[in-house]
């Protein structure tokens, strides 16, 4: 039971986010957004989850490089792979949201392009990892790659969009974030819990992937 409490928390938080996202009051009258403002509880936490997974992966890349324990490398690579899953969900939900608010699936915008390039950086990690046959080299090269990739990713996804002059995406360039729209704190009541839920779900899937990777690695060692 003690091992499962945070997984149960994840499920409860997401259930609350879905029910709350659909039925709790929200500012449904903001221009082209209308009720899609409720996507905040689903689209944004995907990116939070991706960033948290990549942070964990980054820490374990450093630990692998300093300690040389392959368990850390498995953890690091598993979390990167699961983070790509969340990035994909973030891109697709964002694209869909854009289609019915901005009227197009994709648009030249600092936030969107930054996120897309950020994804490509980690897709390259995935390809690099699969292309090296030798175990020790694969672990070392991809860990070093990760050391450089993560700071660039953060710059592309958070800092670069903020510095842009104009943007359509909320909280980047000249646009305001949801906090300025949420005058009654109705969104916050759901959003914070939703974020915790999706992040925990991401970590959960990450640990599942890690366990599978570890079993495979140990089987190969024998």
């Amino acid at each position, binding site marked *: 039971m003690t091992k499962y409490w945070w997984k149960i928390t994840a499920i409860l938080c997401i259930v609350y986010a*879905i029910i709350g*996202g*659909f039925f709790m009051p929200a500012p*449904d009258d903001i221009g*082209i*957004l*209308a*009720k*899609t403002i*409720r*996507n905040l509880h*689903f*689209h944004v936490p*995907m990116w939070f989850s991706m960033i948290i997974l990549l942070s964990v992966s980054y820490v374990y890349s450093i630990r692998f490089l300093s300690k040389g324990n392959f368990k850390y490398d498995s953890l690091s690579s598993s979390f990167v792979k699961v983070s790509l*899953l969340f990035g*994909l*969900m973030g891109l*697709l*939900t964002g694209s*869909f*949201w854009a289609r*019915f*608010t901005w*009227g197009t699936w994709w648009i030249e915008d600092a936030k969107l392009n930054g996120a897309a390039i950020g994804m490509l950086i980690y897709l390259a990690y995935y390809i690099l990892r699969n292309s090296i046959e030798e175990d020790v080299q694969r672990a070392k090269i991809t860990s070093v790659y990760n050391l450089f990739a993560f700071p660039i990713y953060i710059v592309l996804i958070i800092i670069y969009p903020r510095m842009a002059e104009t943007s359509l995406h909320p909280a980047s360039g000249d646009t305001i974030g949801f906090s300025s729209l949420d005058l009654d704190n109705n969104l916050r009541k759901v959003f914070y819990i939703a974020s915790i839920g999706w992040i925990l779900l991401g970590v959960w*899937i990450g640990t*599942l*992937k890690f366990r*599978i990777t570890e*079993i*495979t690695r140990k*089987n190969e060692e024998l």
Partner: protein
Amino acid sequence: MGHEAMAQTNLDEFFYQEGKFYVVVAVLVIIFCILAAYLFRLDKKISKIEKEKNEA
């Protein structure tokens, strides 16, 4: 300008109903489908490990 006035295709017409509420539903469906597809991948990986274990 009302949202309905901007609707140009059938797709727009559908998703602009009810204050674009179905967009939120669709977003959740997208998330669920990708998670489900990932479950299939994990399932396949576990089957592979089981198979290798039985052969050994």
